[in-house]
């Protein structure tokens, strides 16, 4: 039993860590959305760097999560892939109250991040598409002789 308790504590710590990460990610996504609205490329670049930092620990967290689920599967005598936070909390009963609370908050935060991500992704794609069309129009009219680029001055289609 003491081993299970220790595993639960580790799972609670992991879930809390993911919750914190989602909260920070949500903040960055909202800031990036604002940067996109304002066409502030510098702010967009800065936010992406922050996001990149947050994503750096994703692999190690994934490894810890797999290890915890494997060990909990052994404790509960079930296949690790069948375990979720909700099923673990049900198994733990009153001992899983804290984990249940954290899991709820994590669900809500993850949903928020997902919505923000979808929205931001859609906006980015639409911006890119629009931008692409304008660039295509402008560069197509600029008279650039692609077979003789050296004589064409500085105006190049840098997208390709």
């Amino acid at each position, binding site marked *: 039993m003491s081993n299970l308790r220790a595993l639960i504590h580790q799972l609670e710590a992991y879930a809390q860590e*993911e919750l914190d990460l*989602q909260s920070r*990610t949500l903040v960055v*996504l909202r800031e*990036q*959305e604002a940067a*996109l*609205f*304002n*066409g502030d*490329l510098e702010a*967009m*670049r800065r936010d*992406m760097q922050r*996001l*990149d930092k947050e*994503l750096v620990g*994703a692999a190690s967290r*994934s490894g810890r*999560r797999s290890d915890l689920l494997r060990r909990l599967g052994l404790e509960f005598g079930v296949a690790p892939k069948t375990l*979720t*936070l*909700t099923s673990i909390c049900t198994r733990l009963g009153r001992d899983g109250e804290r984990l249940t609370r954290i*899991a709820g908050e*994590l*669900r809500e935060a*993850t949903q928020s*991040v*997902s919505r923000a*991500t*979808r*929205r*931001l*992704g*859609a*906006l*980015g*794609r*639409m*911006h*890119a598409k*629009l*931008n*692409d069309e*304008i*660039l295509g*129009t*402008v*560069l197509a*009219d*600029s008279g650039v002789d692609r077979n003789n680029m050296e004589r064409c001055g*500085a*105006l190049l289609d*840098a*997208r390709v």
Partner: protein
Amino acid sequence: MNMGLKALLAAQSKLETIGHNVSNAGTAGYSRQTLDVATSHTLRINGLIQGTGVDAQVVRRTVDLLLHARLTQQTSVVSRLAARIDGLSEAESLYAGGTGGGLNQLFKSFFGSLSTLSSTPEDRNLRSNAVQSAANIATKFRQMSGGAENIGVDAIGRIKGQVAAVNSLAERISRLNGQILASESSGAPANDLRDARELAVSELSQLTDVRAIEDERGALRVLVGGQTLVSPVGFNRLEVTTDGRTSASVRIHGASVDAAITGGEIGGLLGVLRDFLPGMHDDANSIARNFILETNRVHSTGIPSSGPLRAMTSANALVDQDNDGQVLDELLTNSGLPFETVNGELFVNITDLASGAMTKHRVPIDASSATVQDLLSALSAIPHLSASIDGQNRVRLQADSGFGFDFSPRLDGTPDEIGSFGGARATLASGSNGPFALASGNTLDFSGPLGPFSVSLQPQQFQNMAQATASELAAVLNADANFQGNGLVATDIGGALVVQTTAKGTGASFTVTAGSANAALGWTNGTVLQGKALDVSPKVSGTYTGAANDEWTFRPSGDGTIGVTPGLKLNVFDKNGVQIAQLDVGANYTPGTELAVRDGVKLALGIGDVSAANNDQFRLNVAADGDTSDVLVALGINTLFVGTDAATIAVRSDLLENPELLATSASGASGDGGNLLKLLGLGEAGIEGLGGVSFDAGISGVVGGLALELSSARDAAESEGFLHQSLESRRDQISGVNVDEELAHMIEAQQAYRAAGEFMRVVSELNAELFNLI
């Protein structure tokens, strides 16, 4: 969802603005536009204040209005200078270049050809060269005059075209005013319309000076030359008033005064017409006119290689100023002649072509009172010469057959034609020059071969008897039958009265018996005059080198015989009675030898008796200038050039056809180039009409002044152009579109969008794992 849509619309507007900028990067006058984006209004939801995204507010032009105004002003300055440089450059090429070289070069060529000719004045080829050189100068002057006129005509044509362009721009600005007012009534700035209007103002500033004032509603009032061209409600047309050749003025339709346009191309062209061309005309005309005057002064008193003139018609016609149907009554100074006649004297030499004998006649010209008739009468009074007016009101001089005439200052070789100085005739001269104070009823009493007689003098025979002239007195005497019958003749020699027998030799005599007029003439009753066997016959030679015309009177110091009487002197007096020389003609003198009088004049006397008591004397006209009155130049007689200014100057047509008529000689002697040397002297001489400078210096001054003005204009254009470029550069920095920058900005954004999308994908995948866990 609405927030995202708003952001997308804002971004779309922003990108469209960038695209608009890029598309118009090459559009003249386009000002870079930017999109102002602002946070949308907020909403209160469940007690919380939430943002609703962003809105695109307004697209603004990036312009500096002060800079734009300065640029407009500077454009006018640069355009004005460019137009001025065009005019000055054309003028410079006219003066300093063109076919046959510049005027300076042609003058050098002309005087060079005269110099060459002076060594062999009879050389036909060299004479042709000299005449052709003169014709080249005349052609050049006419080219300059015509060219200057062409510059004026061209400038006027350009002004007309540009005024039409101004009116077109005014109409465009006015139309844009209306469009801008309509467009901006909604509150949004009409950027592209404003750009178009500013471009029109900028184009206007190239044509004229412009002041543009925008009112509070956004309508532009445009002032040109201080007058309203475009008002907020309409526009006025600019109009040109011109003579089509030399002058033009511009004014707003309906205005009472001309628009004071000083800038832009129109300002520059008006400046060329108003300030530059008249001066250029004046300079060319002044040089040409003085060249005509000075060369003709010399040429008209020279003698062609073909010898004295037989007939000559003046180049310039007289004008019937009082419209009474005749020109004879016109004053010489007011007879429409192109050059001024002044008080002076004209010497007319009549040459017997068979013998070569020449007699010199002085015709005094009183410019203030002499009429054309007076001049013709004086000329016709000269033996063997007649003067008349032809059907075109030109003066025609005609010598009798076998005679010729000229106006050269050469010396009269036999000045004592009548023999009043030791001549063979019995002679008595007045003691002094007239006028003589006579009174009504005075008599002169003589005794001749037919006996005594008296000549009574009456007031009606004189203009003013109290101041009777020798000429009037001689006429009275010569008209008297007894005077004629007794073989006497009276003559005026330079103001002195001389009475002589017509017969020569010792048998000829007369006596002054009495007469109340004797005292006035300095005669003594009872004086017996006797003819002589020998005639002293003074002979004059040499060339007078004095600076001014004069009349010398030669009188013996006492009675005696030339070359015999010891101490006999010959005193020489100038026209003021001042003794200027004394010659020893007594025992030490060998008759027939030349004595140097002064100023290059030499005298030889034959043997014979002279008498101071009988007032023996002879006069010699010494002339530096055969025509100090300029009447020959004014009439255009024996001139090298005809015409009066740069537009009309030409070599006399008959001289152009026959270079033998070039008056190269001062004496008429074969091989003499005396008059050529005088013409050559003009090359270096200070010319009074040019402020005392030579022709060469005068032309150099004009050409140099032109070059300096052109250089100054070019310097100014360079510095003003630099300032203009600087202002344009600043305008481009502020308002211009940097296509590279705009596109780089877009591409950068594109990359950022793609990178963000990639992140979103990764985040989504991670979140999917989390959802599986939860």
